[in-house]
């Protein structure tokens, strides 16, 4: 075993910490903006640590839900009460993720295990749907949704986000199922198990990590999706990325409020990832070692 010198270890540690700082600092700075007043946000030189923290931005964004007085007129600001939109985002992201993963799991298992004519083309076709720029289908989807009365509804948003995530989910999960030896299926078949039973009792539990990793990606994509959420909603339903843009006003951007909402919006995604963290690590390493 190679023993590293003290200097080499120190160098590695410094590089590691600098790399971490590069990723963490923008996050830290964004969170501090949420706790700064207007003057401190734009102070020259920037106030990175030495500022007077305030929760005013959070009060304005979530004030009503905490029973705090709501500012009636903000300088250049709009209706900044955002708690319902955060909840809408949670509902849409969670249910679209469940839907996408449920369909993709079955589809990808079938693509991985069942041989049928043109299977290879089918996989390519699934992949090709991700190649079309979303903006190209946003307007046609608007008219389809209008005819189906799905505009501005939870169902409509859940469906479009699930549709958007399906190709990626199918391809990801297929690769996870491909990594599970087919001999396991064959042994179970010989023992008299049905395809469904094999999937439910044997293969799916083995691919749980991959399912978790796919679910995290689907959740994050839905959580941050902007174009469809903007085009297919109207007055009653909004997601966090769409309402974040309302902080851009005719007399400037309310950065403090935007940062407050952004900081709060990280929490549900963070909780979701924590919940699946154990499976996620397994999923990310699944298939890293070939037999």
């Amino acid at each position, binding site marked *: 075993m190679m023993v590293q010198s003290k200097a080499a270890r120190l160098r590695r540690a410094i590089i590691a910490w600098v790399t971490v700082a590069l990723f963490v600092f923008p996050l830290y700075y964004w969170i501090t903006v949420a706790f700064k007043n207007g003057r401190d946000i734009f102070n020259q030189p920037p106030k990175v640590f030495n500022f007077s923290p305030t929760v005013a931005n959070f009060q304005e964004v979530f004030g009503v839900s905490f029973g705090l007085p709501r*500012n*009636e*007129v903000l*300088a250049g600001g*709009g209706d900044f009460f955002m708690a319902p939109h955060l909840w809408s985002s949670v509902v849409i992201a969670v249910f679209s993720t469940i839907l996408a993963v449920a369909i993709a799991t079955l589809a990808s298992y079938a693509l991985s295990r069942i041989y049928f004519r043109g299977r290879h083309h089918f996989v390519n076709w699934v992949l090709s749907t991700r190649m079309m720029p979303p903006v190209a289908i946003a307007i046609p989807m608007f008219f389809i949704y*209008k005819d189906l009365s799905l505009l501005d509804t939870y169902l409509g948003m859940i469906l479009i986000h699930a549709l958007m995530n399906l190709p990626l989910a199918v391809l990801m999960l297929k690769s996870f199922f491909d990594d599970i030896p087919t001999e396991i299926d064959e042994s179970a078949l010989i023992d008299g198990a049905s395809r469904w039973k094999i999937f439910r009792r044997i293969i799916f539990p083995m691919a749980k990590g991959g399912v978790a990793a796919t679910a995290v990606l689907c959740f994050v994509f839905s959580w941050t999706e902007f174009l469809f959420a903007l085009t297919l909603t109207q007055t009653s339903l909004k997601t966090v990325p769409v309402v974040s843009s309302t902080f851009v006003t005719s*007399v*400037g951007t309310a950065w403090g409020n935007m940062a407050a909402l952004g900081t709060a919006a990280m929490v549900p995604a963070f909780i979701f990832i924590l919940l699946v963290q154990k499976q996620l690590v397994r999923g990310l390493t699944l298939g890293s070692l070939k037999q």
Partner: protein
Amino acid sequence: MRSSDKKFHAANIVDKYVKGKISRRNFLRSTGQLGLALGAFGAGMNMGPRGLIGGNRALAQGLEPDAEMLAWVKEVSKPFAGQTIRLATEATPPSNALNNTLKKYFEEASGIKVEIEILPLEQVLQKMTLDIASQLGTYDLYYIDQSWAAFVSEDVHDPREQMENADLAMPGYDMDDFLEPLVDGIARYGDRLVGVPYDIPIFIMMYRKDIYEEMGFTAPTTLEEYYEQAKAITDAKGPEMYGATGQMKSGHYSLECDWTAWLWGHGGSIFNADGKFTGNDERGLEAMAYWRKLYETMPPGVTGWTWDGQGQSVAQGVAATMMSWGEFFPYFDDPDATKVSGLIEAAPCPAPTRALRTVEETGFGEIPGVGHQGGSSLAVSKNAKNPDAAWIFMQWATSKDTQTLITTLGGGTGPTRFSVYDDPRVIANNRVGAGTTRHLQVVRDTIANDMGSEPDLPQWAELANDTIPVRLGRYFADEYGSTKEAMDDIAQATDAIVQG
């Protein structure tokens, strides 16, 4: 005591109390005599995290919509109670004041629910375009930027036609009270009125009084003087402070707005009477030469800023002057948000270097003037599901009384009605502080004497938001061999689009 006197008195009392000029005892006594006592006291005490915005909130409780007007709303809305009307609008001070403070009075009186969707300007255009194309009628009211007027002119009701329905016409609405230049510049397209003027951001000169006094300057009266002052400040104080600033983000509408001010200010125009692009003629090139040298006096990074960054550069003391939207002025006076509260003065835009071209010499109704206006109108959609309810709300929202409240509560935004500028409640806010109205006389003078309006043609939204600012951005990125080459390229692209 008359209602208006009572309101004026209330405004003065609250203002004095907020500034600490009268004691709590005297404040309570005075407001009690006006029947406002506890509400106004609570409001006066409730200085929120945004400081003087709390003062405005105090006024919000002391100044309420006219009772007679609300009685009319109640009576006329009876057949429409229970309906919901929708409006998508940019987050402008009038829309915010309506949405956050005032619409509740209308809703209580009428039984009509008002949903106001606040969006960035480009998203408002997208929503409106989809609504028109689909004829869905999601939005009963359209917020129409002046550059879209031609594009939507056939999709909204002309308010003059709606006024003919006497059953729904608001008593004393007075269409003639809207400032005539705004009606022409914002709402008129051909023979039609595309709604009524709703808000009026307009270019005025804003400068740091302390810096100007230190340098021995007075407010610039000509464009050349403005440049000389800007250069002197940058030379003396740069890089900590710059003499001028801009909204010059490549490909953004704001860049086009800056360009038109300099173009018109040098006697040029975007189009000639034949509808051909003329920004590349002698006057257009003079304007570009001026702009280029003024650009050298601006902070680095100005080509990445829209009006947001421009305003911030003044608010944080990086730039000493700004010829831009007057809406920023009340923000600059907010001591909690900026470093320049009380230090900024408003002045008319410097005079042009040559005589302005007349409307007859330009094309598509373009009105040259250094004071570029970016106003908007409000109109009832022809696809509206509840057009009558929307028309009642629109009249109430643009009436004299409501516009006064919008100006008072909405942070000193410029009114579109003549009478509102002289309303005692508006004049009462003529003091240093958030939501000040001390710049409004300059705004009114600019509207009357020096307002520039962009041309009205269906392709203008594309030209102003893409074709012209993209190429101007490339010019400032030095991608062209010469100014002439850049402007010829814009001319070629613009003429091709106009000719279809």
